[in-house]
């Protein structure tokens, strides 16, 4: 994995494929759209918040449901019923 990491492009490399506006197959790169339009769309300087809460809102809702389900399973497994108490 370290050997593969040495071949990765630099973070500020403008010529790498993931930083281009047009991807190699001719379509637009979605990350480029997020960086350019995040502030205009939501007036929020933190791009990560805009992506998590707005563009990928349903995914974040799923994460919250996962945590909620973990809590419910915690009740189911850990809380003992009154019959067992006797």
């Amino acid at each position, binding site marked *: 994995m370290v050997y593969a990491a040495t071949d990765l492009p630099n973070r500020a490399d403008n010529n790498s494929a993931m930083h281009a506006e047009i991807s190699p197959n001719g379509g637009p790169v979605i990350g480029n759209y997020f960086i350019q339009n995040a502030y205009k769309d939501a007036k929020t300087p933190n791009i990560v918040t805009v992506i998590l*809460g707005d563009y990928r809102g349903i995914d974040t*809702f799923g994460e*919250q449901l996962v*945590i909620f389900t973990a*809590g419910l399973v*915690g009740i189911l497994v850990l809380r003992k019923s009154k019959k067992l108490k006797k």
Partner: protein
Amino acid sequence: MNKRFQSPIVLLGARFLSPYIFMFGLYVIFHGHYSPGGGFQGGALLAAAILLVRVAGGEKIGQLQLIEKLTTPIGVIGVIIYFGTGLSAILAGGNFLDYGVLPFPGVVEPAWSRYIGLLIIEVGIGAAVMAILVMIYDNMIKGEDYD
């Protein structure tokens, strides 16, 4: 088992630290638009503030900060805040979780409406994460007591 006794020094330290951690958690939630942070991280900090007093002070003193029966309703309310925001966007004529169409009073531009929508869902996530972390801790403690 060893005999347990309460340490007033540990409890005092926990009571001193807990409000600051809670305040920082609220800051992380509400300042998530401008700095690293958000609902999950802030909710974990709020839960840390509550669990600190519960660990230090035992079962009865911990109940003074957040009653155990309230944790499950707060978690449900947190999920409902998020889902209700998405659903009200459908009722306002847009897609699910499309905050741009939400009719907030005094907001004309859809971008600022998205800003407020993001803030609301962050609060919902924070409440749910806090309540559920505390809930899991309470249930683990209870399982020990019945033995």
